[in-house]
């Protein structure tokens, strides 16, 4: 489902990724760990084409990315299959919770407004926020916003979900509610890659842990071996 081979990337003459290779099978959860600045988030952002790379290759959800800039059409197809959840949630501030979730199915997949809304309500139900369907993001707590963001990414029914430090901006109580949702997804067999600092969570949810240091893979293997 995910193959990264010999990936390298430089930014302003500094190597941010160096010969990174990893693989994630369908239904597995890969945790990317390591200190700040080790290249975890950059690697994750390469996986859905938000960043380009210099050499090597990526295959994700059946789409192949090559070095250099990517064709917009390829990225649009790839991103339908690869969802992403951001550290800062990035909910659409002008839309209600359910419309945040329903926007992409309606605009990208061409669902009718009613069908898109129904899908949105189902997913909000799944993250426990159905009663907040019509609330604006600004009126929700951080944990609630992140759960809406997860529902929004799931609305495209992606084959792979990417999480970029999904709980770093949250206090412990909110962190717990978001992690609960992610663990639930793992149990349902969703293929995921999660950048995290939370080793306890990685141990609990991940089937594979990759530790990065200074842009290189320091260690990788089952959680029990790496952490």
């Amino acid at each position, binding site marked *: 489902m995910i193959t990264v081979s010999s990936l390298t990337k430089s930014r302003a003459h500094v190597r941010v990724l160096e010969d990174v290779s990893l693989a994630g099978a369908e239904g597995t959860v890969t945790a990317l760990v390591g200190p700040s600045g080790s290249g975890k988030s950059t690697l994750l952002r390469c996986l859905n084409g938000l960043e380009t790379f210099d050499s090597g290759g990526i295959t994700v959800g059946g789409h192949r990315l090559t070095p250099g800039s990517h064709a917009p059409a390829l990225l649009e197809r790839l991103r339908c299959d690869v969802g992403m959840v951001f550290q*800062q949630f990035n909910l*659409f501030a002008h839309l209600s919770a359910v419309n945040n979730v329903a926007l992409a199915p309606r*605009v*990208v997949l061409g669902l009718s407004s009613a069908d898109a809304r129904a899908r949105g309500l189902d997913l909000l139900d799944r993250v*426990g926020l159905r009663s907040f369907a019509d*609330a604006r993001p600004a*009126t929700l707590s951080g*944990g609630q916003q992140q759960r809406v963001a997860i529902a929004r990414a799931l609305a495209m029914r992606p084959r792979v979900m990417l999480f970029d430090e999904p709980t770093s901006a949250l206090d412990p109580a*909110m962190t717990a509610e978001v992690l609960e949702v992610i663990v639930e997804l793992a149990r349902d067999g969703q293929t995921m890659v999660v950048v995290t600092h939370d080793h306890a969570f990685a141990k609990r949810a991940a089937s594979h842990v990759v530790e990065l240091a200074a842009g290189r893979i320091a260690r990788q293997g089952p959680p029990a071996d790496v952490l």
Partner: protein
Amino acid sequence: MKCFLIAVLIVGGMAVATAAADLDEVVARGELVWAADQEGGGPHVFPDPANPRQLTGFEVDLAALLAEELGVKPRFQQGQWDRLPLLLGRTADCVINGIELTPERQRDNHCSRPYFAYSLQLIARRDGPIDALGKLAATGPKGRWRVGVLTGSAAESVMRSRTDLEVDVIGYDGTIDSLEQLSTGVLDAAVMDDCIFTFYADRFSRLRTVERPFAGGFYTILTARDTPRLSAAIDAALGRLIADGRLKALYDRWDLAGRQQMLLLRDAGEVPIARQKSLGELCRDTLPLLIRAAGMTVLLSCLSFPLAVGIGLAVAVGRMYGPPLLKPLLTGYVEVLRGTPLMLQLYAIFFLLPKIGLALPALVAAIVALALNYSAYESEIYRAGLKAVPPGQFEASLSLGLSKWQALRHVLVPQAVRIVMPPVTSDFIALFKDTSVCSAITVVELTKRYSVLALSTGRIVELAVVTALLYLCMSWPLAMLSRWFEQRLERPAAGHGLTEG
């Protein structure tokens, strides 16, 4: 109403407080300040073609003779022609600029004895259908004939009073604007003082005079009512210039039929003075006209502003997200439109485009010019608005598979629109008032109608207050509406609070 009266009293009081300079002060100062408009001012007052820094014209010579008679030097004061009387008692002692002697002018200012006899001449294209004044009595193939005149001139009032003619009278601020428009086919005819057309005829080879002049009158020198000694001195000086032949010699020098002028001036009769209307009568007579003109102001702004916003948004998006080749073009578009006066753009669209075969009706030209000019400002506002949307919003849209354009359409632009609401509203109100420049291309909106009425009735202050109130009546609700809209966009959707989590 109370506030209105107080405002009238205050403004009126200030007007009275500036006392005009009478003869003693002029003599003490050693200068007679005379006002005129040198724009399209031939043969009266115009820049010397050989030395454009030097003014020339028969009125320049006349002013010099008069000043000499008063024992002082002449000093020229430039002013917009239809507003020259407003300069009296403020920056000018007298107005010498082809001002026709009329009952209204006799009422509002002191009018000297006549110094020149003018005739009104109908002018048309050589190849056009108008070959007699009588042709204007029946509608043409395109309906009523369009006849251009100088705003505030006798030609305008004579043509407007001719209800027997099927004409739409269109007022221009520049003396020869109507000739330009007649040449390019926008007008069917023009009416002006014959000496003006004679002076400029060489420039307009496609135009000709139609029949003999059909009406006429006298030019007079205006002075303020409260400078009786100056007025008397000017009358006496004119009398001496006429008696000893210096005025005839002046007209002969300018090829203005000196002997004929003297005969006509000898027969110049008294002109009756008009009666002052009461405030009630004034409002009854002018308010319907002002309200109709306010309708034009609303029409201009409501048609041009949405266009400006649409173009501005497209330009902003193009500059930020468009192909690289397009960006310098759009930047140039913004800088050119923002960096040149709206008035020039109006002139270019109205007077220059017809020369390349694209004659837009005045209303369309006005809307296009306003929309283009404001689109430059709107695009900068939208650029700021788009930049103010957090970058994460764009990344989140892309990560869901939206294309760049879908992200703009559904995520970035809707948020930018909310951010820029206050400055855009403010611009709408600014445009609303800027519509007044459209009078330069014959569109009669509120400010223009005010000028016309103020000058024809002489009730400058009262009508200014009425006009200002009309503007406020329109812009205030506009501001309220946009504030309401702003709040509606800000308000979170109803029904759910923070009961969970």
